[in-house]
C-alpha cells in the first residue's frame, strides 16, 4: 500500500515536471522562433552570397585563363580547408577588425558562411558545367554567340538545373553550420536555446525543441528545392538523364 502511494507521487511529480516543461517551452517558443527567423535570414543570406559568388567562380574555373582558374582553386582550397569556427574567428576577430570594419555579428556571419559556401557551391556548379559536354558550347559559338552569351543562354540554364540536388544538400549543411555562429553571439536558434537552458536549468527540453526546429527547417527547405527541381525538369529527361 505504502509502496503504491510512493509510486503515485512519483508519477504525479513526473506529470508535473512534464507540464512544467511544456509550459516553459510554450513560453520560450516565441523567443526561439524569432531565433529561427534569424537562422533563416542567415542561411538565406549565406546561400545567396554563395550563389552569386560561386557561379562566376565555377564559370571562371572552367572557361577563364590559367591565372584566374588557379586563383579560384586557391580560394576553394582555403575555404574548404578550414573548420568553419576557425574561419568565423579569423574573419570576425581578425580580418574584419584589421580592416576597421565594425560589423554586427549577424552580418559577419553571413559574409563568412557565404564566402565559404561559395567555395562549395562553385564546385557543385563546376561539376554540372563540365558534365554538359563541349558540344553545347561549340554549337552556341557556331551560331555566332560570344563566349559570355553562350555561357549565359546555353550553359548556365542547363548547369543550374542539374545543380539543384547538390544545392539542396548545401542548404541542409549550411543550415546546420549556422549554429556555430553561436560562438560570436549571433542570436540564432541555438544561442537563444542556450540562454533559456541556463536560466531554467532545463537543457533537455530546450535543446530538443531547438533540434526539432532544425529538423523542420531542413525538411521544409529540401522539400521546396525538390519541388523546384521537378518544376524545372526538362521534359523527356528522367533524373536529368535522357530516357533511354
Amino acid at each position: 500500500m505504502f509502496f503504491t502511494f510512493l509510486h503515485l507521487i512519483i508519477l504525479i511529480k513526473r506529470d508535473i515536471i512534464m507540464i512544467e516543461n511544456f509550459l516553459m517551452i510554450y513560453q520560450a517558443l516565441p523567443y526561439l522562433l524569432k531565433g529561427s527567423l534569424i537562422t533563416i535570414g542567415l542561411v538565406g543570406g549565406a546561400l545567396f552570397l554563395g550563389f552569386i559568388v560561386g557561379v562566376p567562380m565555377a564559370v571562371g574555373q572552367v572557361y577563364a585563363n590559367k591565372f584566374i582558374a588557379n586563383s579560384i582553386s586557391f580560394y576553394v582550397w582555403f575555404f574548404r580547408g578550414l573548420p568553419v569556427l576557425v574561419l568565423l574567428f579569423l574573419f570576425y576577430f581578425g580580418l574584419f577588425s584589421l580592416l576597421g570594419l565594425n560589423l554586427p555579428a549577424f552580418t559577419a556571419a553571413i559574409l563568412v558562411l557565404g564566402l565559404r559556401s561559395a567555395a562549395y557551391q562553385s564546385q557543385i556548379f563546376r561539376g554540372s558545367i563540365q558534365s554538359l559536354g563541349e558540344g553545347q558550347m561549340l554549337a552556341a559559338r557556331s551560331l555566332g554567340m560570344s563566349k559570355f552569351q553562350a555561357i549565359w543562354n546555353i550553359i548556365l540554364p542547363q548547369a543550374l538545373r542539374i545543380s539543384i540536388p547538390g544545392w539542396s544538400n548545401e542548404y541542409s549543411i549550411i543550415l546546420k553550420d549556422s549554429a556555430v555562429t553561436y560562438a560570436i553571439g549571433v542570436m540564432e536558434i541555438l544561442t537563444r536555446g542556450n540562454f533559456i537552458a541556463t536560466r531554467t536549468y532545463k537543457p533537455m527540453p530546450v535543446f530538443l525543441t531547438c533540434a526539432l526546429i532544425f529538423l523542420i527547417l531542413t525538411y521544409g527547405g529540401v522539400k521546396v528545392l525538390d519541388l523546384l527541381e521537378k518544376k524545372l525538369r526538362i521534359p523527356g529527361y528522367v533524373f536529368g538523364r535522357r530516357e533511354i
Partner: protein
Amino acid sequence: MQRDKDIVLEVEDIHKKYREEKILKGVSFKVKKGETKVIIGPSGTGKSTLLRCINQLTIPDRGRVWLEGEEVTHTKKSINQFRQKIGMVFQDFNLFDHLTALGNVEIGLIKVKGMDKNKARQKAMEELRQVGLENQAYLYPAQLSGGQKQRVSIARALAMDPKVILFDEPTSALDPELIGEVLEAIKNLAIQGMTMVLVTHEMGFARSVANEIIFIENGKILESGSPYKLFNNPKYERTRRFLKKITELYGESSEKR
C-alpha cells in the same frame, strides 16, 4: 584578293597540328555559290578539324579563310560576325537540351541577330516547316528521334541565313532507317541552291548531290573532282580502293531509298 565573285568560301593552305602530330598539312579549296562540296577520307584524317578551322572553332596554325571575299582569319572584325554567316551541323546534333525545337531554332535569331521575339518565332517556325517538323516545334530534344534532332539542327543553322553550311557527318550518329529523312532535307537545300560543305560517308548521296568530291588523306587533299570522275576514273588507286570500301561499308542508302 577575291577574283571570282561567285566564290562564297575560300580555304587556303590550312595547317593544324595537335601537340607534335600534324593533322592538316596544307588544305586548300574553293566553294562556289550554290555548290555542294563533299569531303571524304579515312577516320581521324582531320575532316572535322578542317571544318572547325573554317569557322575558327579551332584556330588553324597557318592558312587563311575567306567568306565572300572577306578574310575570316586574322580579322579585325569579331569572329562572331562571320560565324553567324557560316552554319554548322554536327555529327551528334548538339541541340540545346533545355530548349524546345522552336527554342533551338529561334535563340540565335534573338540573341545573336537581336531579332524581335515574335518575328524570330515566325521565322523559326518557317525553318522547322522547311525540314518537316512544324508539328514537333514544342517538343524538347529528349523527346525527338535522332533524325528529327538532326533536322532541327539543320533548321537552326538555316535560320541564321548563312552563306554556307558546314555538315560534319550529319548522318553518322543515326540509325539506318533515320538517315534518309536527313539526307532528304539536305538534298532539298542543295536543290534550293544553298552552298554547302559536307563531310559524309554516304556515297550514294555524294554521287547524286555533290558538285565535287574532295578526298583527304593524311592531312592533305589527295584527289578531287566530280563524282563521276572519282568513281569511274580516279587518278589514284588509293582513291578507288577507299571509295570501294566506303561504298561497301555504308551502302548507297540515299539511292536505294
